[in-house]
């Protein structure tokens, strides 16, 4: 049973997704516990796998017992194991969180929402667990297609946002597929480990260089790297609350994971770093993304939209960290993948609670929230401090490694960009705190009297608990960052 855990991580959500309409047909209310149960099993398997990887090293799982270059192989090393746990745990928390918000936003689509929700999770899990480049493409498309559908059922204007995402996302996926084709022409293999063995002799070949370029552009589209980010803000702002809480933390980070895999597993690190000038391009793309994202975030009055531009800036952190291309910065990048999933999840769960209470997600809706929902806002402050990068929270540590790596490499522009974005984040979040505390009570005593009357009115428990857990995780990761790095992340960093 234990050795089958890797495949169960993916198969359980896939099978259960297909059974969800049946369950919903029997009774609509059963869907919610069903999804939670499914994702709990999947997350449990993910934790078992992580434990095995930490104690026994890399797992190779042959699907149908076909040995690798012919069969599909699942390879779980330290990087995958971390990603699998992240994805399944995030999905589980979002599933717990989803109940009330779906009842409010999509009362007649509950069954189909959960079906597509599970397919989306399957896609993400498949991407991070597979060791086969074509299999990765299929899972990438499963995740993307489910994402298009989930986004399209959102609020006013969501279908058009989703349509634009489809067009750009398909171009990205097609470029990826084309790159797989080029590699297949010259190597005759689709297995990542096999490719890594065959490719070094072919690095001078133009076909391989073109394949590498197509990989990078395709994945950059999927991860919303700054000039290619245009689909992201609209899509994530207008998606239903639960969908954005699932997709926003995971899609971009999973794409960054794919980039790391292609750069450092399929190709050798020395190819990606020395042979091609790609790291220089990535570094500058990251710097521009950080500046662009931060400045655009300042201009927003919609809370969710502001978060979307923060994501764009955070993608810049990670891409820039890869671009710095030394071991410390890449350690920072991998740690930041972990942190950013948790932080973005925290932000979007808070945004969901605000949407649930106020029916909107503008910055003004935070008025008086500290009085009304003290626990939610406590969680929000923790997450915000982490995004800013205040020491006990996890955001500080990944930023510290990124800064350290940038200083070691002498990339001062990246240092400036990181500090600039931290400053902008302080402005962004303290502006919201100010609205939340209502420091400007311009209406005088009348309004003040009204405020006294306002009772504590917390979010429903099913929404509050995941948010508080996320806030707790943020502090835990911050406190235990050393064991996480020494047990997990230092093995995930390629030897440069």
């Amino acid at each position, binding site marked *: 049973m234990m050795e089958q855990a890797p495949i169960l991580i993916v198969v359980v959500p896939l099978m259960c997704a297909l059974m969800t309409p049946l369950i919903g047909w029997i009774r609509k209310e059963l869907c919610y516990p069903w999804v939670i149960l499914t994702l709990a099993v999947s997350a449990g398997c993910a934790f078992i796998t992580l434990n095995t990887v930490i104690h026994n090293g890399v797992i190779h799982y042959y699907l149908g017992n076909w040995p690798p270059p012919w069969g599909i192989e699942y390879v779980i090393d330290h990087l995958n194991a971390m990603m699998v746990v992240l994805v399944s745990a995030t999905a589980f928390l979002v599933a717990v969180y989803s109940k009330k918000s779906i009842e409010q936003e999509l009362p007649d689509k509950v069954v189909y929402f959960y079906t597509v929700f599970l397919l989306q999770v399957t896609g993400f899990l498949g991407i991070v667990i597979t060791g086969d480049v*074509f299999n990765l*493409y*299929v899972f990438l*498309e499963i995740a993307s*297609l489910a994402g*298009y*559908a989930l986004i*399209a059922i959102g609020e*006013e*204007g969501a*279908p*058009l946002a*989703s*349509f634009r995402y*489809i*067009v750009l996302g*398909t*171009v990205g*996926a*097609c470029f990826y*597929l*084309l790159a797989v*084709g080029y590699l*297949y*022409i010259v190597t005759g293999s*689709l297995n990542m480990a096999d490719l890594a063995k065959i490719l070094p002799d072919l690095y001078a070949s133009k076909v391989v260089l073109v394949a590498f370029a197509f990989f990078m552009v395709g994945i950059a589209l999927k991860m919303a790297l700054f000039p290619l980010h245009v689909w992201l803000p609209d899509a994530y702002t207008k998606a239903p609350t639960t969908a954005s809480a699932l997709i926003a933390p995971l899609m971009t980070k999973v794409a960054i994971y794919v980039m790391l895999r292609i750069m450092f597993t399929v190709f050798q690190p020395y190819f990606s770093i020395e042979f091609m000038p790609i790291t220089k391009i990535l570094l500058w793309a990251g710097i521009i993304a950080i500046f662009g994202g931060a400045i655009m975030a300042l201009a927003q009055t919609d809370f969710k939209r502001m978060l979307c531009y923060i994501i764009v800036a955070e993608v810049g952190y990670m891409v820039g960290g890869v671009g710095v291309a030394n071991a410390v910065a890449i350690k920072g990048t991998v740690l930041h993948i972990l942190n950013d999933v948790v932080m973005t999840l925290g932000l979007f769960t808070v945004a969901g609670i605000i949407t649930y209470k106020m029916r909107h997600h503008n910055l003004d809706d935070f008025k008086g929230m500290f009085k009304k929902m003290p626990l939610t806002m406590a969680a929000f402050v923790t997450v915000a401090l982490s995004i800013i990068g205040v020491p006990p929270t996890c955001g500080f540590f990944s930023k510290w490694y990124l800064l350290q790596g940038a200083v070691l490499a002498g990339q001062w522009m990246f240092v400036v960009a990181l500090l600039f974005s931290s400053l902008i984040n302080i402005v962004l979040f303290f502006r919201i705190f100010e609205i939340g505390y209502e420091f400007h009570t311009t209406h005088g005593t009348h309004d003040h009297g009204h405020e006294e009357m306002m009772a504590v009115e917390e979010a429903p428990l099913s929404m509050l608990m995941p948010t508080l857990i996320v806030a707790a995780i943020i502090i835990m990761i911050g406190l235990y960052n050393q064991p996480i790095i020494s047990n997990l992340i230092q093995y995930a960093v390629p030897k440069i």
Partner: protein
Amino acid sequence: MDFIISKYNFWIYIVLMMIGFYAMIAKKNLVKKIIGMNIFQTAIILFFVSTAFKKGGATLPILLDIHSTHGHGQGHAVAQQAIEVANYINPLPHVLMLTAIVVMVATLGVALAIVIMIYRKYHTLNEDEIIKAMK
């Protein structure tokens, strides 16, 4: 010129891909964008299929099988013949493309469903008019 003719299949796929890409970028009608997207994906499928081709009379393994049964009349010899790699077209790209076609159809389905949603709401498929109606 010889360079173009000897690899004409790749040139066709490049031209198709660019036609699709142009439609995705330049057309204002959402359905035309979807058609462009489909041409783009089809070009990639043609590319994959043409990479499987081998010069020198290679065919499908099944055809080869029947032919050699006739010649040798022995099951054992048939198996040997079929394994001869140079004699059959690489089947793997075709199999990959079956999966890619499924993905393509699914994308088309989702895209069309979303276009229907848009049309029901705004009663037009022109992107500019939809954006005007949203404001």
